């Protein structure tokens, strides 16, 4: 099977052709938004970090913005910093330029304030968009795709139908030679032994156990019960009793193929096939990590119903909760009927076919409703 995508200089293939306007720090976020508002086809990445971070969090923010800029769905990037922020705008720009795409930097304190920066940024982004729009879609084998998967606003239907359907679509893509990534390490707690068994080597299996322990220890160190934080109040109302139950349902969104690689938040895979990026269960920053990893189509299951999409990546919302589907039809793209649970492979194939259409340009509901700008960056803290 094939899809129609945009070839990038680094050999990757995008499913969209955006100009990204990325602030390095919260102080530049409103300015970035205003630049993007002026230029049709450009998309901002809105976040509230970039200052007062620990060295580890600062490094994580720098690599995440670099790899976001390298996402194949982006044709060119405008970076906007404040000037006194500790973020490495030069390093981010160099990293993105290595992917062969145009990058421009604007520093608000050097340019001379918001209005001057918006003016300059608008001229740059307009020219970038004009250049990018010359590129037309070409036909590519579906093995050039990379899926990401997320679950959010979960209830028990997520583990029964939504996540298994996404997992079945993952298996199809990975078997064809494509790439897929999932995350939400918090939601491996209680199910990590099942994931470790699927690791390509014992070392990768141990890494899975290690990243899970690192998340769990943050709760143990603070002396709190993680129930209430995760599973959330809404998860519990939806019937999820413990993190173990939620995790056992959540991991099925990764399918059943061999796990090739584990990497840190903000990084991208070095190998093909199925991988895990270490990230939080909190959807917004998790989607950012999946986009930074290079996903070009996102599959997102929800039981309770959430509008959120991924930055720069078209997001297909999937639910197996019939009441949610009826109530939130404006937000949900794909319904999994639990009465057909025994045919999850066929449902996964339908979802895969829809993902190919979306890859070729069909807009998802999260996309048309602009639910994909405000994801933010993960921080471990403490903030200074």
């Amino acid at each position: 099977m094939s899809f129609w995508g945009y070839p990038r200089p680094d050999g990757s293939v995008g499913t969209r052709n955006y100009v990204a306007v990325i602030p390095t720090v919260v102080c530049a976020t409103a300015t970035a938004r205003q630049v993007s508002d002026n230029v049709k086809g450009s998309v901002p990445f809105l976040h509230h970090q970039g200052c007062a971070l620990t060295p580890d969090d600062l490094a994580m923010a720098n690599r995440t913005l670099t790899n976001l800029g390298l996402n194949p769905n982006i044709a060119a990037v405008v970076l906007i910093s404040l000037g006194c922020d500790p973020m490495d705008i030069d390093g981010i720009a160099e990293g993105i330029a290595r992917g062969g795409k145009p990058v421009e930097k604007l520093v608000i304190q050097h340019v001379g304030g918001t209005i001057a920066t918006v003016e300059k940024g608008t001229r740059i982004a307009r020219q970038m968009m004009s250049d990018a729009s010359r590129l037309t879609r070409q036909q590519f084998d579906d093995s050039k795709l990379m899926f990401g998967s997320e679950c959010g606003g979960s209830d028990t239907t997520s583990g029964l139908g939504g996540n298994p359907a996404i997992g079945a679509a993952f298996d199809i893509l990975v078997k064809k030679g494509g790439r897929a990534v999932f995350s939400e390490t918090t939601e491996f707690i209680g199910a990590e032994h099942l994931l470790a068994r699927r690791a390509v080597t014992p070392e990768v299996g141990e890494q899975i156990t290690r990243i899970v322990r690192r998340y769990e220890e943050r709760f143990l160190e603070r002396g709190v019960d993680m129930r209430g934080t995760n599973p959330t109040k809404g998860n519990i109302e939806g019937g999820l009793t413990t993190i173990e139950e939620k995790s056992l349902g959540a991991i099925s969104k990764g399918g059943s193929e061999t796990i090739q690689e584990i990497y840190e938040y903000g990084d991208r895979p070095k190998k093909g096939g199925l991988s895990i990026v270490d990230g939080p269960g909190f959807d917004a920053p998790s989607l950012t990590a999946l986009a930074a990893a290079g996903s070009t189509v996102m599959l997102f299951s929800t039981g309770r119903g959430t509008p959120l999409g991924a930055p720069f990546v078209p997001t297909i919302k999937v639910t197996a909760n019939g009441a949610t589907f009826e109530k939130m039809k404006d937000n949900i793209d794909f319904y999994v009927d639990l009465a057909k649970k025994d045919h999850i492979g066929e449902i996964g194939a339908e979802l895969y076919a829809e993902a190919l259409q979306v890859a070729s340009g069909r807009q998802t509901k999260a996309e048309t409703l602009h639910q994909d700008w405000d994801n933010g960056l993960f921080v471990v803290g403490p903030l200074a």
Partner: protein
Amino acid sequence: MEKKAIVLNSKDNVATALADLAAGDTVALEVDKKPVSVKLVNPIQFGHKFSLINIKSGSPILKYGEVIGEATKDIKVGEHVHVHNVASTRGRGDVVKGAAK
């Protein structure tokens, strides 16, 4: 006939409701392709769980064939199984003994 509840693995001691069910309802289920019926003690909301057997306090709760937590009270067959009678054994910084595995 549409299923009113589902059991995911033959090891499980709980079922998940696929409809809003009333106390006193008798629910027909399939476990390992064998029919089982359970009379509900409590009303069970869509997506919530009920017990298939009597479960002793301190015993594991099994779903997906895996442990999802521990009973904090004796649970009778047909009872609602949720946060009021099940505790997690993971991420329990509030419990002194709770240490990461």
